[in-house]
């Protein structure tokens, strides 16, 4: 178990700043999710932690030791790749045993540890199979077992669920979280899927263009986005933005309600012209405009709305967020 610190980490590939000055602190036993669109530098940041890339500037500290010049194998980390990277020529047993074999442990100890890890992940019956003979979900478990068998200080995971089909993915996510909590290993998890990030992360670091835009618990990231990028990236559909009096006014689609349904609290009012209504089963989405700006409302099915008409809508003032018109940074009012 260990904490990880990143101090002013930069990574350049030629003229491109893949990671552009990141400061992060990951606590002992924490599950930190790096969330961002592709090209945001999240995978590079993780590879820097793993030692697969060398930082151009900055310091990387694991468990109190600066590890910039320490090769991956001596960092006490383990990693699960997106592709799982199982050694295709080795059986599942030998795959999981590999880190221990390299360490030079004796056979009985290796067998004991591999069987323990395999048992934890419920893959004990697969040990003699080859990687080509098991399913995607099983491969993922093998990769995790291999990562954990050495009892790493830090576990790194690069989109480990993205190669699974949608059905398996949800259960895998729940199990992964349960598992991490049980053994309490410090975990850094890279994903571009915000549902995964929300469900898994103790904290989420949202990245874009090589920088961390916001770091916080999932609720804060969702309800109090630090800037318009985070606000626009998180949430499906994302936050609505309307420009008023020289500032950007932002509010989530589900707090944007017909005025008559609103409570008596302090309200901010809008005229909402509905252009299209989409029924999505348990709720519906109303697309329309405030002035010239397109916005979306997420409503219960029973709210009556007709396409082409204008309504009075409102948002509780405490649900409204304000952002600077040029920089997009949040302003507190």
């Amino acid at each position, binding site marked *: 178990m260990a904490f990880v610190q990143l101090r002013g980490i930069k990574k350049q590939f030629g003229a491109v700043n893949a990671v552009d000055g990141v400061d992060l602190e990951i606590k002992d036993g924490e599950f930190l999710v790096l969330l961002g669109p592709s090209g945001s530098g999240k995978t590079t940041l993780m590879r820097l932690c*793993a*030692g*697969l890339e060398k930082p151009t500037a900055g310091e990387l500290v694991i468990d109190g030791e600066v590890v910039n010049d320490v*090769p*991956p*194998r001596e960092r006490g*980390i*383990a*990693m699960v*790749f*997106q*592709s799982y*990277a199982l*050694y*295709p*020529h080795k059986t599942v047993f030998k795959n999981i045993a*590999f*880190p221990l074999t*390299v*360490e030079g442990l004796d056979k009985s100890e290796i067998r004991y540890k591999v069987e323990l890890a395999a048992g934890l992940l419920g893959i004990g019956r697969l040990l003699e199979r080859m990687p080509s003979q098991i399913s995607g979900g099983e491969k993922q478990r093998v990769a995790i077992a*291999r990562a954990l068998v*050495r009892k790493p200080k830090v576990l790194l995971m690069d989109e480990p669920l993205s190669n699974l089909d949608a059905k398996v993915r949800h259960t895998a996510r729940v199990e992964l979280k349960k598992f991490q909590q049980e053994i309490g290993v410090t975990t850094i998890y890279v994903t571009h899927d915000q549902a995964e990030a929300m469900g898994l992360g103790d904290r989420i670091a949202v990245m874009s263009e090589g920088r961390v835009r916001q770091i916080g618990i999932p609720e804060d990231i969702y309800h109090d986005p630090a800037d318009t990028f985070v606000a626009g990236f998180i949430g499906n559909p994302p936050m609505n933005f309307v420009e008023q009096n020289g500032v950007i006014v932002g509010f989530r689609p589900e707090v944007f309600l017909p005025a008559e349904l609103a409570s008596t609290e302090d309200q901010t009012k809008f005229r909402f012209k509905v252009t299209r209504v989409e029924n999505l089963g348990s709720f519906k989405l109303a697309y329309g405009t405030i002035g010239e700006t397109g916005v979306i409302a997420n409503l219960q099915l029973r709210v009556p709305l007709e396409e082409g008409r204008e309504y009075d809508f409102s948002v509780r003032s405490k649900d409204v967020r304000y952002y600077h018109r040029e920089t997009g940074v949040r302003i507190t009012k």
Partner: protein
Amino acid sequence: MLKKIFLKGGFYGALAFFILFSASPFYIMLITTFKKSHDLFNPNNNPFFFAELPTLDHMKLLFSQTLFTTFLWNTLLVGVAVVVITVLLAVPAAFSLARMAGKWGESIGIGIFLTYLVPPTLLFIPLSRIVAILGLQNSLWSLILVYPTFTVPFCTWLLMSFFKSIPKDIEEQALIDGCSRMGAFFRILLPLAVPGIISVVVFAFTLVANEYIYALAFIQDSAKKTIGIGLTTELVRGDVFYWGSLMGGALLASIPVALLYTFFLDRIISGLAMGASKR
């Protein structure tokens, strides 16, 4: 229906033509090897089949009266030595160029491939001087020293494309699982590259068995000759007496090489085509 039969007939006809064209020299070797001299040297007898009973006389002569087995042995010796040298030089180079060396690795790789396009016929004159200065004329060592000039460049290129086809993740996983760069190479990449290395071994060996010009230029001593020059210089003397043995020798030596090569042909050719067109 008639058209279909006609097309089918045309197809098999054309195929038969090409098979005859390609295989007939080997067929004629086979027949000639086992023909009695009396049968063989009668211009009126059908050369494509036996007019008299077949005989093993030419074969016996080949193995007892000629240096055929010596030629084979020499070829095998040179082949094994060259294969070992080639693998020792080409495998690390290909790994480095494909996996470690980034951009300049690509350029050097192409450079090494281009040296494959420098033919023996351009190099044999200076090389004959080098061989003479080193005192290796008439020695199999001259061939062992020089043959890697064509095996190393091509095999390096072939292995580069092989190493490139192994996902990078797997190597990085090995680094994280406790290997050094070299450790990952020996423990993970090398076992995965075994099929590629085998095809390189086969390819290098068949190239050695094929080589003619250097052997012709460096070796005059009959007992030091390899199979190609041995057969064509020692058994061809305008002396009709040797025809059956000559054919038998050529057939016996070419079929194993051809079988070996055919077995790995697809991989080698795709490497050849990759080298020049796509990766």
